[in-house]
């Protein structure tokens, strides 16, 4: 074989490869099953970008509304906070607060060294209109008038 000139191009071409019986008959069916024969799974709900963004926006709105609804008001302690404190304690606290303000007012008027303008004095009293109305003795008003 070593000295022999091998001429591939002019030698007989043979196919040494074989296929199983009926292979090509079945091949087209196998291909069909994977192409147009494939059962298409159609989702019940089709999802789109718009739907995704709309869902996110809706969740944010609900979350924000929920937050503001459940958040306690700034000027209110909330009923749970006050529930643990006895009523008498609350009354005492309020009374004590009022006395301090009254004493402060008297002190200011008697002490010449303290220099507050009238407007400043009134501002520092922290007396609301409601407080004034509550302190007025309605029985005496008619007589005075």
């Amino acid at each position, binding site marked *: *074989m*070593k000295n*022999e000139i*091998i*001429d*591939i*191009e002019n030698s007989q*071409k*043979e*196919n*040494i*490869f*074989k*296929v*199983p019986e009926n*292979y*090509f008959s079945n*091949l*087209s069916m*196998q*291909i*069909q099953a*994977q*192409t*147009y024969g494939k059962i298409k799974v159609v989702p019940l709900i089709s999802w789109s970008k718009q739907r995704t963004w709309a869902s996110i926006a809706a969740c944010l709105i609900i979350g924000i509304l929920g937050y503001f609804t459940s958040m306690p008001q700034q000027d209110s302690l909330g009923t749970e906070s006050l529930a643990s404190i006895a009523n008498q304690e609350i009354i005492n606290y309020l009374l004590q607060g009022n006395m301090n303000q009254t004493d402060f007012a008297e002190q200011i008027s008697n002490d010449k060294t303290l220099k507050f303008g009238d407007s400043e004095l009134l501002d520092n009293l922290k007396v609301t209109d409601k407080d004034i109305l509550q302190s007025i003795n309605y029985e005496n008003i008619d007589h005075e008038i």
Partner: protein
Amino acid sequence: MIEIKLTDSDVLAKFAVPETRNFAFDQLVRIYQQKVYWHIRKMVIDHDDANDLTQETFIKIWKALDDFKGNSQLFTWIYRIATNECLNHLAKKRRRFFLPLNDITEELSNKIDDSNLISGDEIQLKFQKALLTLPDKQRLVFNMKYYDELKYEEISKITGTSVGALKASYHLAVKKVEEHLKNSPF
């Protein structure tokens, strides 16, 4: 049963119509399945691999046929898809197992010896093993020229390689194989 044989333009025209799409594709498969299979089989050697790759090729054809613009012949386009499937398969094999070229050659060579779907006289088996020593693209060109008897111009459209380069590659491949056979013990 009379077998209807459609031309490429018939197939494309019928494929474009939803009502006849499946029929057209079925005809396309019948026309090209053997050519595609044998083209792949000669490259990958193993029947099961060739079967998988042939089916993959036709699945890709099914998905992409709407986009076929007719810039080339349908046959050329189909062959190009099949060629890419082969080359990608062989490249993946090498990467997966980190095998150098010789080991892939040895693996394919062993398949020639062991498979019950490969039979031929000793010279033919040696010849196939000699082809396995060629680089994949060169082997591909050799197969298309030697076995499929395609013109260089057709091979050029399939591979994207110039006719001149293909001629050089083929003649070099022939020389290598002849040398290999001359030096191999019988």
